[in-house]
């Protein structure tokens, strides 16, 4: 459907152009992920789980009695393209909501588009916090639901010194800014902080820096392909999880498969969900996913968040009796949903989810075994207002 609809363009009404078109037979929603380029590796899996959720909802009768029709667009791992496609989904396809993005860079690019059109974006990936757009729902973890528990866990395990390794973009840099503040307050020494460009593959020098610095643990915010190179070369250099555990916040089941489980086995990760998470909802989710996409596929945290956020939008729309963004926002406040990761709740104010933090360890079979979990869902705190050490960030 390419809109050559000049009649639709209503030059009279200036200002908000988004008026989710609820008049048709179906309700259109946007699915906007990178289907090509470096990030496709991660993002297509999220698209898959979002489509799964849409199918489930449609099978159960749809939303407001109408079927949901996904409009899929390719963000092409290119942030400006995300912005362009978001605009297209809003003004031409008149989607009721858009599910999309992975990197914080893509989200930052889309943010002004959604804000100026007063349209809704559901964003499924853990991120660095310090953001709260009224038109974005954040269904991945913010810092205090993933990174801080990860740090606390390392500290509990006896780590007194850390080395920070990350990809060179906004998420790792901002996250590390927070980590350093935390470390200072917690008497943990930061022995180094290194960034490599997205897609970097040569980690020899970085590893020798790690070997020189001898930290108790490494905190890893690398994203995408780089993780594969990093872990393979780390193992090649003879560094094991026992010598120097590497806590990752962007390595989930999907990435483990690409790295090769034998290369990451034993290293800890921090997320809110694993394929092994033991809830009835998750058993159903994994089964449905495999039935739909093949038994060899794995599920992961961002995939689960993608799946969950579609359901949350559908629930909110039902509750509001409309797909109008303002009404959906209103209805979503405090909404709960029994997700594969356990019960989640939409925060009244900041539109993030209450989520349970889980630390896991990678097993040689590629699955992740949970070794620690928070007592119930943690309230999202994107600006870390409840932490003294985070003042001035």
């Amino acid at each position: 459907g390419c809109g050559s609809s000049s009649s639709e363009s209503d030059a009279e009404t200036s200002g908000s152009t988004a008026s989710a078109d609820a008049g048709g037979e179906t309700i259109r929603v946007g699915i906007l992920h990178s289907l090509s380029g470096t990030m496709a590796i991660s993002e297509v899996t999220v698209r898959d789980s979002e489509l799964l959720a849409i199918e489930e909802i449609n099978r159960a009768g749809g939303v407001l009695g109408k079927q949901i029709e996904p409009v899929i667009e390719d963000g092409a791992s290119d942030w400006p393209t995300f912005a362009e496609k978001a605009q297209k989904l809003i003004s031409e396809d008149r989607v009721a909501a858009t599910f999309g993005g992975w990197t914080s860079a893509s989200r930052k690019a889309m943010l002004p588009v959604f804000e100026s059109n007063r349209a809704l974006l559901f964003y499924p990936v853990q991120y660095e916090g310090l953001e709260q757009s009224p038109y974005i729902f954040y269904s991945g973890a913010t810092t205090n639901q993933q990174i801080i528990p990860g740090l606390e866990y390392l500290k509990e395990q006896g780590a007194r010194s850390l080395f920070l390794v990350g990809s060179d973009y906004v998420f790792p840099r901002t996250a590390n800014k927070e980590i350093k503040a935390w470390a200072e307050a917690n008497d943990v020494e930061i022995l180094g902080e290194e960034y490599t460009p997205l897609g970097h593959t040569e980690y020899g020098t970085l590893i020798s820096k790690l070997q020189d610095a001898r930290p108790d643990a490494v905190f890893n915010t690398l994203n995408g392909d780089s993780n594969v190179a990093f872990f393979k070369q780390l193992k090649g250099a003879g560094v094991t999880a026992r010598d120097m555990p590497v806590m990752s916040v962007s390595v989930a089941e999907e990435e483990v498969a690409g790295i090769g489980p034998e290369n990451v086995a034993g290293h800890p990760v921090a997320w809110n969900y694993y394929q092994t998470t033991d809830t009835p909802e998750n058993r159903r989710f994994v089964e449905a996913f495999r039935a739909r996409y093949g038994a060899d596929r794995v599920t992961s945290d961002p995939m689960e968040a993608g799946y969950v956020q579609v359901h949350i939008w559908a629930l909110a729309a039902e509750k509001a009796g409309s797909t109008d963004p303002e009404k959906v926002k209103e209805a979503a406040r405090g909404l709960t949903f029994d997700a594969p990761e356990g019960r989640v709740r939409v925060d009244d104010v900041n539109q993030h989810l209450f989520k349970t933090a889980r630390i896991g360890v990678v097993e040689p079979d590629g699955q992740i075994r949970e070794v620690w979990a928070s007592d119930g869902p943690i309230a999202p705190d994107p600006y870390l207002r409840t932490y003294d050490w985070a003042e001035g960030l």
Partner: protein
Amino acid sequence: MDVFLSQLFIGLSVASVLLLVALGLTFTFGQMNVINMAHGEFVMAGAYTVYVLQTSVFSASMATLAFGLALPLAFLVGGVLGLILEFTLIRRLHGRPLDTLLVTWGVSLILQQVARDIFGAPNVQVKAPPFLDGGITLAGVSMPYTRLFIIGLVVVALVAIWFYLSKLPAGRRMRAVVQNRDLASASGVRTPRVDRLTFFIGSGLAGVAGVAVTLLGSIGPTLGTNYIIDAFLVVIVGGLGQLRGAIIAAIALGVANAYLEYWTDASLAKAAVFGLIVVFLQFRPQGLVVTRRRGLA
């Protein structure tokens, strides 16, 4: 640990990967003047060859055998892809080197998408053969077997290529065709056959490089894009079609990068190396090893 020596080793191993990718280019770019942007995708095809062998042909316990067989097979896979490219497109582009860049760029887009459709967008995994686990420590420098293996592979490839180019009639023919196609043809050299063979070898080497890089990094549709620019820079700095130049250039770039990265970080080191290349070309505009010519070029 002695930083100087360990960075030297890291530099050399970076160089070996660069060189392995660049060697194929000394054929297709250096000899035939084809700027093959799809070379990286041939590397990727080599990497997927290992994956296919390991997952679909051999059982997991036969990783070593699969890996060993992958070397010749990846050469063939890369080579055949190169042949197809030569036969369908490159053939039409003689004397338009800059256009080959643009056309093969289109080819590389398509090959990436093909890989995505066949193997899926996510990375796949290859098991290193067990005998490459671990490493040795010499003079305080730890040398992973994987790195040593790649260095060894490069040395073997280099010797073979040197012999081919300078000792075998086929190599001479190859150079003759590049330098004066019409004259070679009118002298009885079957130029299309020479072109195809050149492209086959160059692309085959890319396939071999693909096998090597599975030991170090990710295997995914965009694998090739990581290496392609650096590899071209090696060829440029070395001097077009100059084996000796490419070796020195790869080592210089690899080692410079290793030391610079140690003192700064990966981004700055990379930018600095690019800067150094621009400066270097001020002194040696034709690269390290120059083929001089008389009169007007």
